[in-house]
């Protein structure tokens, strides 16, 4: 034990009292030599000879000291400090070289860190629920479909029979108008059962959660307020519990306030404050065919998603037998909650991380190339150090220190870049990406960046270090600094590096171009006529609970009349759904089809629209006429279908006058087609054209309303007048959102645009890196071959020949890289394809275009070195020998 302390002391002594330790070693060896010389003198040698023999017998003094230092310990730290000093001096001496390397690395590391931190916050970070992997959602689609909510009777049957869940409950989102004490406001509410909060493990910060009885009681009027709403609307009032608030003009009592870290799953992506109200199945639609309940459950310990699905499917099969009319071919689907909340952001972010990884790889190879080219000039220096007793390991370590220092500096700058980039990202996509509002750089992200910096440091440092530290002493001295001979391995490495860069960049540039094309394809739609002239504003129908449904909705009619009289308004229409965000779906039979539960007819989007809607929003009428108020008359329901529905139902026939009905034994809808309109996409920019039926405002009742106003001038100028008209009709009614139809298309493209911009940006970075890398390597090789070029010119080589020599080299590398990249494009086609719309991942035009572009890059990057080669003066070269 005491010896252990002694060793520690020696190590520390070496570290902190290095001079003393060195002096003692010096003294010891000097004494040895002096005694040896004395002995030799006594043996009769001359003083000169005595000294020489003593030194010879001892061997190298410096080498001995080095060996002692190795043994003595503390060596690592000592060397490290020395290496660091040496490195920093070297880097400061070449500010240009250093900043190029640091910037290159900072770009690579910064991009990776930014994307990683998004990935971590959005995908990897666990949900704010205990054991989130046990949380699942349940759906009851027909075979071949997915994500169909449950009906109330089905839910009760499932709940009765299933054993898989520790707790589970149902909810339905409901946007409501909150009014009373302040400005009317539209807020997302959730109707839910008490078990659901238990499954999620919700905690009330103040007050209480719902009780089972409360959610069974149809007249319960308790409401739980989210932390966000409590702060934003009620000023964090501690006395809020027990107060009455107005929801859809009904009085409710606040019973609880949620804790600040609890978020209801659908709030994750809405980033909106909201509240919870009890869902009482007693007053809800009780038809088995009305699917509107979403299920979240916590699986029992040890029950897998598959087992739960199996069990629910057994129940679904029994229900199908008992209620064939609604439940035939209806199955149960169990999906982890995580998948629902994240949607398809997860894979896209992983792809982005892959792309930034490629950029980092290019940055690394670039830096490796730069270091190697520089190290070629250091052969002599290395040889000198080696002959002074520095071992190969020592040299290797020194060079790795150098690359690590550079990498860490690059990593730090990269982290700053990432921090800045994340700030930008947060501004560009507020709430579009799930949980993007929670982005931040935390310890793990910093660790990731540091790890990345270390890894890249080793990655780009190791090869140049290996080739340089393996110095051939005699060779280096003989050739000296005269010719910077590139070893064969070095040339080959630099070539491979350029090839790899071209390959990676090819894949990236191709993908970026394809994505740009997709973005253009998705947004540049001519579906709507002059969408920039159309103002769209939403509100929620002010119908109060229990009120009788009057059709046509008198409010819609009154509002339409008022808006039509506004100056500057060409036409007005009101609908329940808009293009791209659209429509509830129903099974519809076209005239000529018979009801048969065995046949899948597919679904049709249903949209309620007022007269004037098509004209106002800009959907072209192809045949027949617009909807009229008379179309709602009992027994004479008139509908308008889109071109798709008409063509798939009655190919080649006139659809006007044809009949349609709901696809069920006792149809809830029977109507006649009065017109056909142009197709618009219903489910987002990237959806196919689907069949749509537009019908007058008709049950089932949908509370969302969108007003479309076609303006003669700037549509946004209509907003104040619109608000006035609405307030005159109903002072408690807030507008939900206001935008133009053109903005709607833009808005829907936000996420695609962001991904495209990011990948485009990374492709640009990759391109500039590959250009810089090619330039560096070709310039280096021209410099190395100055002598050879001089001889060639002296022997009569033409200028063209010299240029060809240089360009040929870079073109050969670029073409090889492009060939490899072509292979890569095929390999990556599935991944790239998942990001595209309206264009295939292997579009030959794009492949050829990317290849030509990269050839251009290769030629221009090597143009300057080629010109330099042409200007070589053979006389000067010979004289320099």
């Amino acid at each position, binding site marked *: 034990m005491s010896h252990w302390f002694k060793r520690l002391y*020696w190590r520390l002594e070496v570290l902190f009292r290095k001079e003393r330790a060195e002096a003692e070693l010096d003294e010891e060896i000097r*004494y*040895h030599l002096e005694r*040896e010389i004395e002995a030799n003198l006594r043996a009769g040698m001359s003083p000169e000879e005595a000294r020489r023999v003593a030194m010879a017998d*001892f061997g*190298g003094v410096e080498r001995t000291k080095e*060996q*002692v230092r190795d*043994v003595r310990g503390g060596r690592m730290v000592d060397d490290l400090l020395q290496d660091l000093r040496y490195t920093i001096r070297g880097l400061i001496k070449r500010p240009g070289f250093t900043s190029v390397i640091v910037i290159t690395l900072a770009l690579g590391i910064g991009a990776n860190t930014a994307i990683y931190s998004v990935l971590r916050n959005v995908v990897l970070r666990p949900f704010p629920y205990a054991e989130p992997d046990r949380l699942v959602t349940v759906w009851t689609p027909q075979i071949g479909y997915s994500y169909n909510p449950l009906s109330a009777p089905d839910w009760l049957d499932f709940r009765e029979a299933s054993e898989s869940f520790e707790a589970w409950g149902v909810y339905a989102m409901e946007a409501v108008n909150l009014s009373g004490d302040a400005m009317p406001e539209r807020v997302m509410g959730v109707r839910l059962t008490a078990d659901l909060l238990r499954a999620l493990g919700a905690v009330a910060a103040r007050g209480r959660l719902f009780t089972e009885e409360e959610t069974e009681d149809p007249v319960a009027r308790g409401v739980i307020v989210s932390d966000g709403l409590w702060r934003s609307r009620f000023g964090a009032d501690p006395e809020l519990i027990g107060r009455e608030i107005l929801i859809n003009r009904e009085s409710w009592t606040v019973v609880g306030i949620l804790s600040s870290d609890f978020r209801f799953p659908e709030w994750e992506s809405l980033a909106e404050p909201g509240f919870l109200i009890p869902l009482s199945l007693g007053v809800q639609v009780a038809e088995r065919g009305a699917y509107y309940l979403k299920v979240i459950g916590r699986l029992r310990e040890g029950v897998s998603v598959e087992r739960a699905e199996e069990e629910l499917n057994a129940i679904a099969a029994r229900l199908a037998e008992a209620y064939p009319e609604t439940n035939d071919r209806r199955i149960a689907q169990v999906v982890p909650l995580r998948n629902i909340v994240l949607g398809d952001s997860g894979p896209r972010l992983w792809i982005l991380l892959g792309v930034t990884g490629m950029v980092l790889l290019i940055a690394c190879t670039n830096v490796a190339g730069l270091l190697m080219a520089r190290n070629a000039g250091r052969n002599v220096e290395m040889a000198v150090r080696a002959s002074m007793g520095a071992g190969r390991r020592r040299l290797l370590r020194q060079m790795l220190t150098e690359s690590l220092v550079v990498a860490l500096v690059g990593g730090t700058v990269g982290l700053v870049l990432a921090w800045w980039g994340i700030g930008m990202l947060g501004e560009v996509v507020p709430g579009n990406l799930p949980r993007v509002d929670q982005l931040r750089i935390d310890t793990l992200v910093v660790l990731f960046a540091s790890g990345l910096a270390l890894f890249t440091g080793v990655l780009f440092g190791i090869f140049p270090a290996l080739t340089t530290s393996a110095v051939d002493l005699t060779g280096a001295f003989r050739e000296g600094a005269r010719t910077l001979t590139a070893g064969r391995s070095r040339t080959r490495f630099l070539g491979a590096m350029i090839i790899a860069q071209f390959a990676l960049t090819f894949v990236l540039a191709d993908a970026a171009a394809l994505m740009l094309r997709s973005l253009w394809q998705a947004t540049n739609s001519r579906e709507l006529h002059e969408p920039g002239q159309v103002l769209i504003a939403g509100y929620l129908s002010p119908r109060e609970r229990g009120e009788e449904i009057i059709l046509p909705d008198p409010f819609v009619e009154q509002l339409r009349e008022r808006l039509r009289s506004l100056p500057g308004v060409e036409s007005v229409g009101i609908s329940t759904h808009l293009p791209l965000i659209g429509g509830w779906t129903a099974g519809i039979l076209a005239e000529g089809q018979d009801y048969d539960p065995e046949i899948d007819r597919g679904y049709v989007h249903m949209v309620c629209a007022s007269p004037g809607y098509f004209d106002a929003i800009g959907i072209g009428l192809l045949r027949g006429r617009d909807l009229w108020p008379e179309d709602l008359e009992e027994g004479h329901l008139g509908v308008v279908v889109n071109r798709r529905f008409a063509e798939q139902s009655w190919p080649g026939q006139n659809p006007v006058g044809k009949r349609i009905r709901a696809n069920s034994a006792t149809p809830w809808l029977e109507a006649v087609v009065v017109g056909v309109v142009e197709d618009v996409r219903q489910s987002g920019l990237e959806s196919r054209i689907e069949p749509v039926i537009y019908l007058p405002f008709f049950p089932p009742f949908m509370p969302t309303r969108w007003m479309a106003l076609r303006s003669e001038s700037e549509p946004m100028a209509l907003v104040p007048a619109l608000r006035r008209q609405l307030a005159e009709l109903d002072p408690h009614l807030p507008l939900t959102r206001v935008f133009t139809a053109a903005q709607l298309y833009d808005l829907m493209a936000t996420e695609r645009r962001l991904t495209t911009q990011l990948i485009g940006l990374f492709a640009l970075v990759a391109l500039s890196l590959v250009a810089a890398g090619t330039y560096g390597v070709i310039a280096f090789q021209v410099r190395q071959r100055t002598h050879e070029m001089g001889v060639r010119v002296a022997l009569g080589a033409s200028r063209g020949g010299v240029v060809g020599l240089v360009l040929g080299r870079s073109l050969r590398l670029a073409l090889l890289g492009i060939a490899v990249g072509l292979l890569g494009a095929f390999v990556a086609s599935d991944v790239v394809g998942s990001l595209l719309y309206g264009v295939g991942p292997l579009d030959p035009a794009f492949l050829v275009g990317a290849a030509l572009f990269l050839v251009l890059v290769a030629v221009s990057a090597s143009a300057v070195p080629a010109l330099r080669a042409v200007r070589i003066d053979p006389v000067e070269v010979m004289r320099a020998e």
Partner: protein
Amino acid sequence: MSRGKSDVLQGTLDLLILRTLALESLHGWGISKRIRELSGDVLEVNQGSLYPALYRLRDRGLIRSRWEVSEDDRRVKIYELTKAGSEALVVERDRWRVFAGAMERVLGTA
């Protein structure tokens, strides 16, 4: 200098140092001189390599060092065997004898 060869030499050198210091405590030069004397000048220790070996043995706790004033009135570093060093000497000597005996047998029968 390849590593493998120096390892063999190292072990031998360590044993020689321990044996020398078992007789009396000495400074570096003294050790190298004593080894030459004891071996009848057969074993020529590379003097330079003595010092790394000394530091290594000290690090392993087999010898310790202290500064003293020598007979010629100069400050010298004296090495002496520790208890662990004496024990190691016995072990190492036996091991060497087994090794040397084996070598002898092999060479003798050839």
